[in-house]
């Protein structure tokens, strides 16, 4: 063994301790999540003692009326927001890529990316101020505010993958369609849109996940009684927590991870 060790070539890329540190890092990233998932199946109330496997907390969460309402609202808001955001982001991407640089383009980029730069708490508070005014003027307190706020911060997340896809697309195909007497609309529908579709799907999926995950802006924008799943969880976390919370979290995690995985597969397809 000692012989083999001596003749092994000098490892240029190796730095002592780094792989260990990295593996510790990966373990630390996943250990809390795995613990959380594990204890969602715990028969007992405890978060540290294993009392046997059970679906008890999933049943409890499923039958909890407030969880049902919050999940429904989360789904409605995320669906509406991601659909609107993806539609307008697709249009915006078409209007900002593969074109001559025009005046105001930089300004448009700044506006589109603005939700990524401003801290969520600042946006949340600013929306609280404006919506409080609008609520007094119009008396409307529905979920429209939530959908508007979510749509706004979802736009950059939908825009970026669509734009990336557009930029890597072959513009000559559309020129060919035009040469073959396709109207601009036909060329768009039969050539551009099918090519762009993976990007649009990826953007929509990302927007959906981002909307589903949002806590801070929702917390400030929601009117009384409008809880999405994350704000419901935030309000419950301060009390004595039961594994019911873990069960909700686990389902939530599963949905996000599934969507993100699909997103990765879709955006990887772009490079091939």
């Amino acid at each position, binding site marked *: 063994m000692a012989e083999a060790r001596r003749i092994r070539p000098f490892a*240029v*890329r190796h*730095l002592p*301790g*780094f792989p260990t*540190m*990295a*593996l*510790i*890092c*990966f373990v*630390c*990233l*996943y250990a*809390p*999540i795995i*613990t*959380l998932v594990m204890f969602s199946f715990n028969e007992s109330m405890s978060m*540290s003692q294993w009392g046997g496997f059970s679906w008890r907390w999933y049943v409890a969460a499923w039958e909890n009326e407030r969880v049902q309402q919050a999940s429904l609202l989360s789904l409605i808001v995320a669906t509406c927001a991601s659909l609107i955001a993806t539609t*307008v*982001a697709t*249009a*915006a991407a078409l*209007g900002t890529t593969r074109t*001559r640089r*025009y005046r105001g383009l930089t300004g*448009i980029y700044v506006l*589109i990316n*603005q939700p990524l*730069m*401003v*801290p969520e*708490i*600042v*946006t949340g*508070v*600013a929306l*609280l*101020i*404006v919506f409080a005014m609008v609520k007094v003027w119009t008396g409307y307190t529905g979920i429209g505010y939530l959908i*508007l706020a979510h*749509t*706004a911060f979802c*736009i950059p997340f939908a*825009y970026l993958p669509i734009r990336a896809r557009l930029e890597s697309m072959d513009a000559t195909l559309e020129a060919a369609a035009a040469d073959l007497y396709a109207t601009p609309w036909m060329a768009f529908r039969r050539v551009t849109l099918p090519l762009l579709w993976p990007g649009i799907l990826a953007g929509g999926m990302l927007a959906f*996940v981002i909307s*589903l*995950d949002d*806590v801070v802006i929702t917390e*400030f924008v929601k009117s009384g009684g409008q809880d999405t799943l*994350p704000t419901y*969880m*935030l309000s419950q976390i*301060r009390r004595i*927590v039961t594994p019911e*919370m873990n069960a909700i979290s686990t389902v*939530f*995690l599963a949905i*996000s991870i599934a969507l*993100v995985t699909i997103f990765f597969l879709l955006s990887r397809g772009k490079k091939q």
Partner: protein
Amino acid sequence: MAAQDTSPAPEEVAAPTMAPHGTDYAAIAMRRERRNNLALVSPALLILVVGASGPLVVMLIYSFLAAGDYGGVVWEFSTQGWFQVFLQRDMFDDTIGFADAHLSIFWRSLSLAFITTVLCVIFGFPTAYFIATRPPEQRSLWLFLVTIPFWTNLLIRTYAIMEVIRNEGLVNTALMKAGLISQPIQMLYTDFAIMLGMTYVYLPLMVLPLYASMEKLDFRLVEASYDLYASRMNTLRRIILPLVKPGLIAGSILVFVPCLGAYVTPRVLGGGKRLMLGNLIELQFGQGRNWPLGAALSITLLLIVMVALLIYVRNASRQGGAHG
């Protein structure tokens, strides 16, 4: 002489082709393209202005109004909101002094954000290096493993940390069973908990840009350094670090900025007593009932963040392309 007269300057050649009264098709096409582009972009911009940018302007106005008694504002000009960000008037003798409570929260936010950034470098650097030195076909899998927690719900990840470190949690139970401690260590609701939580939550933001610049690292330079009898430590310090500095700066800012504006993590792990800027802002719109001060604090936070992002953008453009 004659030759000179017959060969006009280039500008003069161009002039006659621009028909002053004729139709300039190129210009029309350009105008049409521009109009199309604006029509395509405008719905998105409208939503963004109403739902994101416009409210910031309204908030700026609010920061210069007087506070209403029960929340909201009174529509008269006042600089009280801004005055109260750092200063306070003594209740009894009207002397002006620094608002210690606010200053200590500013200080806590800045120092916690800074320490978290350092911790993220300590843990993120080896991780990014590890990924970058894997065989190419393995890299995307490792990267994916880093990205997954990043896209899962921040609240859930914070909750996961909370469950692990609470008094009845896994860490304390394990330590007590091992006989190392007789009483649970109070970790939850301390600055340590906030720091730990933020490091956990924002670590991927450090790893990704670091990886992006390490991936481009030319290992022939590292080899050359070893050939010249540099030790591993010297090579890391003098060769690798300077080469991945852009990624390091980018990652640090990407971690620092959300830490500074963190709201959920300090609320859940700090237990409402250990405030950070985000919680101080929220307080002004809740129990504090001082909207102008809240607005002024938000804009202060926004300004600090903008300065950090400006450094980020300049760093990225100097390197000839954005990272991460």
